[in-house]
């Protein structure tokens, strides 16, 4: 079976500091990977998605970036955090080329607070 991990679970960072959130998937190969942000009391907003190593698509222009250095690893980064970057960040995966690739499975999330 497949599992998805995210860390850290909670993070408090000062404005202007860098950010690195990590997501890894086990039990499948060549998954599609996604980063979402959920602001307090709101739905989910897709930030980035990736269909393969080094292939990143951005949905929302901002000071965040994503990278996929390995098949099952997805990293969300920022060089300088803004107050507006605070939120709950969720990583998700779906089957790439087989199975129910339309269905996304979510990780436990990272709560980011920028002070």
């Amino acid at each position, binding site marked *: 079976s497949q599992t998805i991990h995210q860390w850290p679970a909670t993070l408090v960072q000062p404005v202007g500091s860098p950010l690195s959130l990590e997501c890894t998937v086990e039990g499948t190969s060549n998954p599609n990977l996604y980063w979402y942000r959920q602001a307090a009391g709101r739905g989910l907003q897709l930030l980035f998605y990736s269909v393969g190593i080094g292939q990143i698509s951005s949905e929302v222009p901002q000071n965040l970036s994503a990278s996929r250095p390995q098949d099952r690893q997805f990293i969300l980064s920022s060089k300088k955090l803004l107050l507006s970057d605070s939120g*709950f960040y969720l990583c998700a995966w779906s089957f790439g080329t087989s199975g129910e690739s339309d269905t996304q499975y979510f990780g*436990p999330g990272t709560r980011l607070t920028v002070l």
Partner: protein
Amino acid sequence: AQTVTQSQPEMSVQEAETVTLSCTYDTSESDYYLFWYKQPPSRQMILVIRQEAYKQQNATENRFSVNFQKAAKSFSLKISDSQLGDAAMYFCAYRSASTSGTYKYIFGTGTRLKV
């Protein structure tokens, strides 16, 4: 552009009773997928049920079932025999079946269910 609307910010139900959560969507596409996700206090998004638009039969997963009305663009979730563990935020989501590759989910703003 597609939109998803959940008009009930909050709903309450007594244990063992039935509750229906509403979701409407707007799209010009004929083939797509619809989902209900549950987000408990832990905040991890859990897939509840999935519906393929080309299937007329309503999806069912144990106590959870949907009423999919394609012409009306309505996708409601019925929870039968409600349990304390059903208390959570419920999100409706839409995904195009297009292979053009955006893989994008459109989420509603959620309905908080109290049991």
